[in-house]
């Protein structure tokens, strides 16, 4: 799909079933009530000149270029701020209007550099375009009067430049920062002629609150705010719609290209997930795709102490296949397995699990969702019958009460956070359940009604206490429960949560949450109107992660908050294709579409299609693979697009498990931490280099489109096909659309999905089949997928990871806005200018007790290991809790985290690790060994290249 300039209707669309009909320049047009004259004209094909208006922002009425005449009315109203009314007769093109517009434009141009031919926006400048439209031929005032032509550029942001000499003070950037992003980092300082765009308190962009989302750049009609890549490379000549490869929001972008070179990525306004908004990662941090660290040649080596040797694709693939077959001959069919990636497409993920099941002949396949949202899949499957969130992101526009549990959308899902903040500014109420004072607790024009700052590890106690209040205070939606839910489970659950030991007062000492606050939050959630829960890894990455998910499902059911707009249970997925990788059968116990491998009917359908006999027993999960490796029964691994050494808990345990294997095949963009333990390296392809689909947290399937050839010569799906063929199991697809066709043929919830249908509709939300041919934006409307919703008893079981005198603090881990997951992508971009190292956030009291000052090196020791980071004193922390991120491998955040995991899914308990913190003067022993090992691996890489 090739597209370039979208129509800008000038003002946002209005939703109303009531239409008004009017006449514009002689043409009849009918528009919803509330539509501006400017938009009505645009919809009739009449483009009224404009500068301060754009359809992503509410009308402002400042530029005076969009004046029109209305019969029977005096003057020249601005068409952007004048609503269309029935019977209006409007003229947009008259001699008087032309004269007025030329006069306005003349004033603008009198204080604007006339360097159009050398300007970076040449050909993409609305001021230039409108000067042409209004027919400006001269500037009577000359260019020698007072002006801003010598104003100094702000080049502080690594991605865009601010040139005040080109600013027309249209306020679009300021309004975008407020309305679209919700950060309020920009304002107009000064008055009259002195008016200038000001980040923060007249600071450079990089020193202001700006989060570099790009909304201001997108909104700017001139070259005032301009991408540096456009300044360097010139205007793009074509664009391709594709899907971002970062978080689970799954934003649609236009990759704006010069040939096969990306010039810029701009958010697509028709993208269902983001509707024209973006964050610093998707908008700007795509340079990793062509970073010098990319490995584009296949490599092999016999031992991890050997130099890498560049080889042909055929040699690498044949070597990998022969090693896997040798291991199976020697150690048994189940001695090898594979790991799929949430950073890869649905089609690639599907092929890897197919390769494991059909070519390896076992079910030893798992995915990185194991370590993030596997409890969501299990918990929601148990309660509602399907392993996915219930809503669209847009649904929040109908929400009255937002409950955010264990998620920090401002950092991890920023584009959705902007939507959420917009709704909160409109008056929705907010409950935050989080150990830390995350951004949402007190953001510009957003303040949480309740912040339940619980102790890490007590989620289940808090959720049960919320249910206790709802049940014992008579706030259950009994009619909904009677109609929609399983009565036996409800009666049992009701009795359980009503017990005194589940009251907020009884649990206050354990959770640290004042009972009165918890009661207030429960009442607000149950009675405040449409209530929606959004949660993240702060829920799932616990020993009771699955229990909390079921507890959340209970809360939503008992209050009748499932099955319509504005409500629901919304897991915020970490990576872009977590939902998709789970949908595609990446777990060892189930086929695509969440169907257990023991189901003989389902298995028979796959056997018939794939032409092999399949195993009926579940295979090994990732942590089971590690255990089996250390026990000597698991010897080979095909790992596509994941970095388990950096991302999985207890790094030393993972490394030991990998060292015990005989053949590890890593397919990735870079020599990541896992690849340092590998014997075969297959060059991966970035999202820009292949076709496919991603499925976001809304179950929205969107196309990923190839805009440049794979740097390594093969897309990931092609490499998997070659490996399978070398193993003797034929895989021959000409295009990923054929893989999706196979998925659709075998998976009832995907039976209506095809590349052609996604292309035609922009995206599709599963289930998409005969029962829902247009897809399913909202789940469980009219009834739950499993039939009756099931209440599950959520007994709080304290974590075994307890604080002691030796380990008196609790460490919890998370993410930051500018970096993504293990950082393999974002660390290779200028995003490092915001976050160049992981630090340990610690409360002032805990720091003072230990004589720690801001910036000191501190050792963090747990029962699993120790590492050293810089300390940052933070008021976001509560006393007794420390926090860090895991974006840099040398930080060793997961050297500290333990093997503890969720009871149902083995999702690691990343969020609760007992630690001690003390000032130190040198890196930890692990860090010194990591440095030595990494330098050695770098030498072995360079030796072979």
């Amino acid at each position, binding site marked *: 799909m090739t597209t370039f300039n979208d129509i800008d209707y000038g003002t946002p669309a209005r939703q109303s079933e009531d239409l008004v009909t009017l006449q514009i320049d002689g043409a009849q047009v009918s528009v919803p009530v509330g539509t501006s004259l400017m938009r009505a004209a645009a919809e009739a094909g009449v483009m009224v000149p404009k500068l301060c208006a754009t359809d992503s922002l509410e009308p402002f009425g400042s530029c005076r270029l969009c004046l029109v005449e209305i019969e029977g009315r005096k003057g020249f109203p601005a068409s952007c701020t004048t609503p269309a009314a029935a019977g209006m007769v409007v003229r947009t093109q008259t001699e008087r209007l032309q004269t007025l517009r030329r006069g306005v434009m003349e004033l603008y141009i009198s204080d604007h550099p006339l360097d159009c031919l050398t300007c970076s926006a040449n050909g993409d400048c609305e001021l230039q375009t409108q000067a042409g439209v209004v027919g400006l031929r001269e500037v009577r005032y000359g260019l020698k009067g007072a002006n801003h032509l010598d104003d100094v550029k702000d080049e502080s942001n690594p991605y865009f430049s601010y040139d005040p000499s080109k600013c027309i003070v249209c306020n679009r950037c300021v309004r975008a920062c407020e309305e679209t992003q919700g950060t309020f980092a920009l304002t107009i300082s000064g008055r009259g002629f002195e008016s200038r765009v000001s980040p923060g308190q007249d600071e450079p962009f990089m020193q202001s609150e700006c989060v570099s989302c790009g909304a201001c750049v997108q909104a700017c009609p001139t070259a005032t705010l301009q991408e540096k890549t456009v300044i360097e490379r010139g205007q793009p000549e074509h664009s391709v719609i594709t899907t971002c490869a970062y978080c689970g929001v799954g934003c649609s972008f236009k990759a704006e290209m010069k040939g096969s070179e990306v010039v810029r990525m701009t958010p697509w306004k028709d993208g269902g997930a983001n509707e024209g908004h973006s964050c610093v990662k998707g908008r700007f941090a795509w340079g990793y795709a062509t970073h010098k660290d990319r490995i584009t040649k296949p490599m092999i080596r016999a031992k991890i102490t050997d130099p890498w040797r560049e080889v042909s694709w055929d040699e690498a693939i044949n070597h990998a296949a022969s090693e896997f077959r040798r291991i199976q001959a020697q150690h048994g069919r*189940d001695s090898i397995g594979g790991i799929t990636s949430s950073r890869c497409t649905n089609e690639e993920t599907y092929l890897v699990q197919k390769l494991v099941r059909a070519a390896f002949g076992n*079910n*030893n396949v798992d995915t990185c969702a194991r370590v993030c949202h596997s409890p969501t899949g299990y918990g929601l499957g148990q309660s509602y019958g399907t392993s996915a969130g219930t809503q669209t992101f847009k649904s929040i526009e109908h929400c009255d009460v937002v409950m955010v549990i264990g998620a920090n959308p401002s950092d991890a899902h920023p584009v959705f956070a902007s939507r959420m903040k917009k709704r909160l500014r409109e008056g929705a109420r907010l409950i935050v359940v989080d150990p830390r004072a995350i951004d949402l607790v007190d953001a510009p024009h957003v303040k949480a009604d309740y912040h339940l700052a619980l102790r890490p590890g007590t989620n289940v106690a808090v959720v049960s206490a919320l249910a206790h209040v709802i049940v014992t205070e008579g706030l259950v939606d009994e009619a909904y429960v009677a109609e929609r839910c399983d009565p036996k489970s409800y009666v*049992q659950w009701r*009795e*359980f949560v009503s017990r005194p030991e589940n009251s907020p007062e009884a649990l206050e000492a354990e959770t640290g949450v004042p009972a009165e606050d918890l009661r207030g939050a429960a009442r607000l959630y149950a009675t405040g109107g449409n209530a929606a829960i959004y949660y993240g890894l702060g829920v799932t990455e616990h*020993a*009771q992660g*699955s*229990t909390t998910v079921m507890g959340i499902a209970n809360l939503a059911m008992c209050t009748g908050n499932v099955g319509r707009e504005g409500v629901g249970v919304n897991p915020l997925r970490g990576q872009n294709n977590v939902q998709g990788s789970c949908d595609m059968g990446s777990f*060892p*116990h189930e086929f695509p579409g969440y169907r*257990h491998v*023991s189901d003989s009917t389902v298995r028979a359908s796959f056997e018939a299609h794939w032409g092999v006999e399949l195993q009926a*027993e*579940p*295979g*090994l*999960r990732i942590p*089971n693979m590690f*255990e*089996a490796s*250390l*026990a000597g*029964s698991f010897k080979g691994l095909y790992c596509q697009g994941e970095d388990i050494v950096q991302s999985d808990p207890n790094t030393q345990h993972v490394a030991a498990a990998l060292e015990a294997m005989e053949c590890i095949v890593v397919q990735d963009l870079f020599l990541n931490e896992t690849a340092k333990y590998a014997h075969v390296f297959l060059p991966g392809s970035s999202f820009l280099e292949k076709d496919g689909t991603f499925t976001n947290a809304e179950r929205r399937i969107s196309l990923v489109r190839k805009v440049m050839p794979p740097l390594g010569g093969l897309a990931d799906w092609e490499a998997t096909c070659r490996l399978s063929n070398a193993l003797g199991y034929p895989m021959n697809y000409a295009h990923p659309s054929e893989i999706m066709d196979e998925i659709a043929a075998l998976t009832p919830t995907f039976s209506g999905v095809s590349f052609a249908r996604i292309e035609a509709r922009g995206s599709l939300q599963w289930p998409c089949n005969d029962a829902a041919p247009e897809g399913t934006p909202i789940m469980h409307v009219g009834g739950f997928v499993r039939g009756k919703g099931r209440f599950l*008893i*959520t*007994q709080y*079981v304290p974590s075994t990871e307890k604080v002691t005198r030796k380990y008196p603090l609790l460490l919890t881990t998370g993410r930051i806005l500018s970096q993504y997951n293990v950082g393999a992508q974002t660390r290779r971009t200028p995003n490092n200018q915001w976050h160049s190292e992981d630090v340990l956030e610690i409360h002032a009291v805990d720091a003072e007790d230990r004589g720690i000052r801001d910036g000191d090196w501190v050792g963090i020791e747990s029962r699993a290991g120790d590492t050293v980071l810089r300390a940052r004193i933070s008021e976001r922390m509560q006393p007794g809790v420390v926090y860090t991120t895991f974006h840099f491998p040398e930080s060793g955040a997961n050297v500290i985290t333990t*093997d503890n*995991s969720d*009871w*149902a*899914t*083995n999702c690691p308990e990343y969020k609760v690790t007992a630690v001690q913190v003390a000032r130190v003067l040198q890196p930890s022993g692990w860090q010194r060994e990591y440095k030595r090992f990494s330098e050695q691996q770098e030498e072995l890489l360079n030796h072979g290249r």
Partner: protein
Amino acid sequence: MDAENLVKMANQIGDFFAAFPDRAEALDGIAGHIRKFWAPPMRRQLLAHVDASGAAAGVSPIVNEALQAYREQLA
């Protein structure tokens, strides 16, 4: 695989289902979960560990009861 870790995982599963008021449902839930999500070698090793170690195996009473009641399906 590490028997101690298998016991820990089984006991965690037991902790969840132990709260069910219907004992038969709880036992079925424990065995069903292990059957559905554990690879056969893990199940067999747990059973072998329990057989060999008896009361010293470390499994909680409700897990032990479930393992014995559903032994054939788990083996």
